């Protein structure tokens, strides 16, 4: 379960990215965070990945207070979270296989097991035949799918994605979202930051709406029109 309790984030210079944000996302729930550019969507995800720290308030993930996660606890926490980025963040000098394998290598999984799980993840995103290729030889959509495979290969309990369909055509965006929905169906908590309202409406999941860092609406799936 993810819990934000009166969370604020101020940057140097006085910019307030998030302001007294409170909401809860249950384990196994899929939710979208939406809002205009600068609404605080990315900041919210960065706080969950301990890339940023809140200025005020409390954030817990599965009961763990993120404020107390320090030093070696940070990589351990990140190993439990799958992160997908709009710009994919792939290592361009390593093959698709090596990119997806990375979280498993970091987690100390044995080579044989790594191979099995990487291929399973690549098969899941439809890129098994691309495993020996470099990311640069793939299309943007394929690169995004490699990023998703890398995010799920470590079997995370939480999957967060920052504008994962931002660079994709509508058809591919729907497919990618369908993939996220599948992970939710098997118990993974999924939180996606997106400003693609038509796509969000189509997915019919809970939607948290931010505006200038404030929570302005929290719509249940059935409320999304």
């Amino acid at each position, binding site marked *: 379960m993810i819990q934000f309790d009166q969370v604020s984030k101020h940057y140097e210079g006085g910019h307030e990215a998030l302001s007294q944000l409170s909401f809860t996302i249950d384990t196994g729930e899929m939710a979208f965070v939406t809002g205009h550019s600068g609404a605080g969507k990315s900041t919210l995800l960065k706080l969950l990945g301990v890339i940023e720290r809140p200025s005020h308030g409390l954030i817990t993930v599965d009961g763990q207070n993120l404020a107390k996660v320090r030093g070696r606890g940070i990589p351990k926490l990140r190993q439990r979270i799958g992160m997908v980025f709009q710009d994919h963040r792939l290592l361009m000098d390593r093959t698709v296989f090596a990119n997806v394998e990375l979280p498993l290598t970091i*987690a100390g999984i044995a080579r044989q097991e790594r191979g099995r799980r990487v291929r399973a993840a690549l098969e899941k995103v439809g890129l098994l035949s691309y495993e020996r290729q470099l990311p640069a030889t793939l299309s943007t959509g394929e690169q995004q799918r490699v990023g998703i495979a890398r995010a799920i290969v470590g079997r995370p309990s939480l999957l967060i994605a920052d504008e994962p369909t931002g660079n994709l055509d509508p058809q591919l965006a729907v497919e990618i979202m369908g993939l996220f929905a599948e992970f939710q169906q098997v118990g993974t908590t999924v939180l996606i930051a997106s400003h693609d309202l038509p796509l969000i409406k189509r997915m019919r999941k809970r939607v948290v709406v931010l505006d200038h860092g404030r929570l302005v609406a929290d719509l249940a799936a059935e409320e999304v029109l």
Partner: protein
Amino acid sequence: MNTTPETVQRETEPAPRSEHSRTRRVGSWREHHGWSAAASLSRLAARPLGSLLTIAVMGLALALPLAFYLLLGNVQQLGQVLGRDQAVNVFLQADQAESQARLLAKQLGDRSDVATVTVKSPQQGLDELAKLQGFSGALDALDQNPLPWVLMVQPRAGLDAPAVERLVSDMREMRSVAQVQDSGTWRQRLDALLGVGDRVVAALALMLALAALLVVGNTVRVDIASRSEEIGVLLLVGASGAFVRRPYLYAGIWYGLFSGILAALLALAIEFALSGPVARLSQAYDGKLHMGGLPVWLLLAVPLAAAALGWLGARLVSAWQLRKAV
């Protein structure tokens, strides 16, 4: 994307406990060390000119103190060889008999700081004087031999100037001794000079080791800066600082190791270049002078120490750089 919820279930179910067993983790840790060592080596090979220049600068920096060490060792040896011809002459009282001279010679010969004692009788002294031009006539006029018994005391090889000074002082205190003649000033000067040389070599080695450390550090810093995106990704997917640092530490080790090997080879080349002139110098000293080369342990230790230095430089810089990245 041919997936079903079942396949997703299978792949996202919690990892079995055995998977995280210690043995597997150690195996994976070793595997990553192997990968880091190989990857860092191939990165060095991928930019040969830059790597060679770094290694050359470090190698030359490390070779310099080795060359000085070699030079100093040989000057020391030269000093010892010259010292063999510089015995301390002990003139006994005129009334001392042969038995007393031989007894004193034995006492001195038993000392640990004395190598040899040669006894020269008054008659031998007189004969030597007679051979000197212009003395024969004057000696004929003497009705008795005025020369005393003389002990030619050779200090043990390698004895430093203060120790020789103590030996001379002890001999001066002996009752049967009239005079001790020691031309030890040159020895003191040489010892002082070698002492300065020792310090210079130590200071030089320290400074150049620091320079090598900075060279590695800067190279690794540039390497890390050029791979900041990769480091960012690694950290985001859960890599620890140690995991991210590892390839850069190996890069430091490779730079150090190769530069250490280069330094040892350069030192050997200098040794080889000096061997000819030293052989000629040795002939001038009746073959008593032998060139002291660099010991094998030192030649082996230099690459290892340089590798440790490279590791240290990489460790310091990567820790600092990664702190900024995290």
